[in-house]
C-alpha cells in the first residue's frame, strides 16, 4: 500500500466529486461537508461509473405509508441501474449484507507534510500553503 497525493482540497469543494486513476484503478473522491471519501468507481453490479451517478439521500420507511428522508447528499446512485451506495462506506442498500463497492481511506495533509513525504505525487505540483487529498492504495 502506498500513499498518493491526488489534488489540492480546493479542487473538490463540499458536495462535489472527482474521478482519479491511482495504480490503474478508477477511484472516485467525494467531499461531504469537508470530509473526503473514496470508492472504487466501478459498480459491483455491471461496472457502471459511479462517479457519474446522482448524489442523493436515503428514503427510508418503517411501514408502508411512512417515509423519512435521511442522509441527504451522502448516497451515490449508479448512473446505469440506480443501485445506491453509501459514500462514507461503499455499502449498498439493495443488498447491504453482501454487496459493497470498495472504499478507500482518504485523508488530507498540509503542503509542508506532503512535501516532506513519503508520498506519491507524480502529477500534482505541491505547494506549502495548500492542503492536499491523500488516498491509500
Amino acid at each position, binding site marked *: 500500500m502506498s500513499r498518493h497525493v491526488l489534488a489540492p482540497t480546493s479542487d473538490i469543494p463540499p458536495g462535489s466529486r472527482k474521478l482519479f486513476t491511482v495504480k490503474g484503478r478508477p477511484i472516485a473522491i467525494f467531499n461531504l461537508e469537508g470530509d473526503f471519501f473514496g470508492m*472504487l468507481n*466501478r459498480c*459491483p*453490479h*455491471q*461496472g*457502471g*461509473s459511479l462517479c*457519474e*451517478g*446522482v448524489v442523493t439521500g436515503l428514503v427510508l420507511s418503517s411501514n408502508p405509508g411512512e417515509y423519512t428522508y435521511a442522509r441527504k447528499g451522502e448516497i451515490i446512485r449508479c*448512473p*446505469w*441501474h*440506480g443501485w445506491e451506495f453509501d459514500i462514507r462506506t*461503499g455499502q449498498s442498500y439493495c443488498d447491504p449484507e*453482501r*454487496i*459493497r*463497492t*470498495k472504499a478507500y481511506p482518504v485523508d488530507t495533509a498540509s503542503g509542508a507534510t506532503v512535501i516532506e513525504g513519503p508520498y506519491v505525487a507524480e502529477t500534482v505540483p505541491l505547494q506549502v500553503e495548500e492542503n492536499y487529498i491523500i488516498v491509500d492504495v
Partner: protein
Amino acid sequence: MNLQIRDTPATQTSSRLAIADCDIHPAVRKASDLDPWLPARWREHLASFGGGRRLGMQSGPAYPKGQPNASRRDAYPPEGGRQGSSLAFMQAQHLDPNNVALGILNPLKSGQGLANPELSAAVCHAVNEWQVATWTSQDSRLKASIVVPYENASMAAAEIRHWAGHQDFVQVLFLSRTAEPLGNRRYWPIYEAAAEARLPVAVHAFGYGGAPITSTGWPSYYIEEMTGHAQSCQAGLSSMIVEGIFEQFPQLRVIMVEAGFAWAPALGWRLDKAWRTLRAETPHLKQLPSAYMRRHVWWTTQPMEEPEPREHLLDTIGWMGWDRLLFATDYPHWDFDDPAYALPLRITDDQRRGFFLDNARAVYGVGA
C-alpha cells in the same frame, strides 16, 4: 477489487468477442430532424396540434422512469442532445469498445401509437428514412427496423412492402401493448407482409394500447410496469400462437424484445397442458403451442434475469434452447446490460458465440 460476494463475470473475453446488440435505441436530436421526410401537411399539423398518442389525457410515459429519458446518465453526447442521438458518441461509448459487429436499431419515439392514423403512418415513414440517412448508411454495423403504424394494418403492410428487399432493414417493429391482443386478425395483413418480405417481426415492450400493463388494473409503482412487461408479452405471444398466425404464415418469425425470457418455458408448459384438454376449441393448431414457440419465436436477452445462483439460467436457457436468445444491451437506456457482465456462467464456446452473435446472424440473415 470489489468485495462483492456475487460470482464475478466468467471472463473478460466475453466483452471482446464480436457481439450482436439486438436492441439499440437511436434518438433524434430535435423533432425537426424528421422534417426532410415529412410532408408540409404533417409538419404543419404537428406544429399546430402536436402528436397525441392513444393514451387518453396523458403525455409522456405512464410511469416516471427514474432516469432522464429512461437513459444512462453517462450517455449524454458531449456535443449535446439526448442520449442515443449521436452516432459518433454511440460508436465511441458502445459500438467500438463492446465490439458490436451487428447492431439492430429500434426507434421507440416513432409514429407508433399516434392516434391520428395518417399522421402515425407519415411519422413512421419519416423515421424509417431517417434511420437510413442518419444511421445505417453511416455505419454498416447498424441495421434498421421498419417501424409501422400497426394499429392500421393496411398502412403498416404498405410501409413494409415499400422497404422490402432493402438491405438495411432486417425486421418489422411492433410495440407490445397493442389495442387488441397481438394475434388478433386485424394485424394479420402486417404479418402477411412481413412473412412475404422474409422479415422477422420484433415485438418490443411498451406501447399505446390504452389498457393497463397488468390484467387487473393500473399498478401504483414503476417497478410493476418493469416487471409487468413479462405478463403483457406472455398475453401477446399466447394470442399470436393460439389465433393461429404461425399456421397461416408458416414463414413468420417473431422476436420478443425487452420483456425477459425466463417466463417462456413455463408459458409453453401451461399452454400445452391447457391445449391438450381444449384442442377442439382451436383445431387450427396442428402442434402443441410450445412447438410453435420453439420454431417461430426468439427472445432478446436484456434485461437479463439475475437469479441467485446464476446457474439457474442454465436450466432456463436449456429449456428454451440455446439458439433462441439474441443478446441485447438496450443502449443507451438506463437498464443497459453490459456484455462483459451479462452472462457470468461457464458455458461452451458454441453456446457463448450463439448467445452473443451467431443466433442473431442466423435470424437476421446478416453474415460475417
